[in-house]
């Protein structure tokens, strides 16, 4: 009798293992599948997924077609990535690296399964050493004062103000930034933009606002709807 029980439990264990290994997320296979989709769909033609070995020249930078994704896992919230990949809407009002052309709004959409896998893959692309838990989303008056009055960030970024969307178009929209961006990444970007992008029109705010103000501002941006 005990032999039968042993055999049955062994069979169940084997079946369970086979089942678990066949679920991509459980074995890390989902990210690998996402990478395969990323390559197959030609996403690498516009997006880099590896940290550049050297700083590109200004001319080289201007030829880049889309934002780098080698730190996507540190920057974006995975849930947002998945959702966005299934029905992409422009985050940047202007075409990448252009002050003349509007965003053509032609980013390819993925099916739900593919989007989930690519989101899983992108979530693995993280910057080493980026501190976690430094900033938490917080809709506070001080953050709003820094954002609106002290730095006038809406000069370049769209934001929601009541029922209206207001602001400039040269930078990425911050409408819904709370759902899109990781709070700690916002702070890391404010602290050292060149760690992520070689050139950016955004001014250096280190030394203009204090480190505490930078954290408050990051928390405020991370709370934006």
């Amino acid at each position, binding site marked *: 009798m005990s032999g039968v029980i042993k055999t049955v439990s062994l069979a169940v264990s084997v079946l369970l293992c086979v089942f678990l290994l066949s679920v991509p997320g459980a074995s890390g296979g989902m990210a690998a599948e996402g990478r395969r989709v990323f390559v197959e769909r030609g996403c690498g033609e516009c997006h880099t997924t590896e940290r550049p070995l050297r700083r590109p020249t*200004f001319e080289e930078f201007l030829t880049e077609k889309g934002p780098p994704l080698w730190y996507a896992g540190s920057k974006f919230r995975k849930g947002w990535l998945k959702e966005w990949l299934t029905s992409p809407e422009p985050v940047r009002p202007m075409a990448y690296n252009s002050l003349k052309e509007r965003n053509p709004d032609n980013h390819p959409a993925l099916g739900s399964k593919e989007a989930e896998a690519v989101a899983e893959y992108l979530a693995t692309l993280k910057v080493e050493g980026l501190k976690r838990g430094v900033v938490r989303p917080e809709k506070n008056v001080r953050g709003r004062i820094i954002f609106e*009055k002290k*730095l*006038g960030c809406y000069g370049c970024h769209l934001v929601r103000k009541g029922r209206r*969307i207001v602001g*400039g*178009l040269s930078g990425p929209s911050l409408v819904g930034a709370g759902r899109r961006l990781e709070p700690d990444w916002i702070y890391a970007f404010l602290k050292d933009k060149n760690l992520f992008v070689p050139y950016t029109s955004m001014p250096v705010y280190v030394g203009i606002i204090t480190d505490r103000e930078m954290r408050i501002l990051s928390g405020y941006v991370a709370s934006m709807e």
Partner: protein
Amino acid sequence: MWLPWNRIIVALLLAFLFTIPASALRVKENYLFYCAPCHGLDGRGEGPNATPTQPVTPRNHRNPKEMEKLSDEDIINVIRFGGRATGISTLMPPYRNTLTEEEILELKDYLRELCQCSGPR
């Protein structure tokens, strides 16, 4: 005898390029990158950030009537410290930690070129 015109033209172009000071190229890059988003590629104040929802319109750098009201020092200080510190719009950011002092002076000279004007005497 035929002259190798292609080579001569290339040599002349190269010679011309090397006579442009590096700062002249740099100042245009800086203007394109930091000023044009609001002030426009041609400096007329019509960059993509000049949307109807903004509380103010960016200054037209080609308008001598507007620009000659500003002294060189005013221009330098606005670039250095931004609008908030100089009593104009807070939408003009401070660039003192983004650009070097030399780059700021180059931009001031470039703005004077765009407006074809000088400050109050």
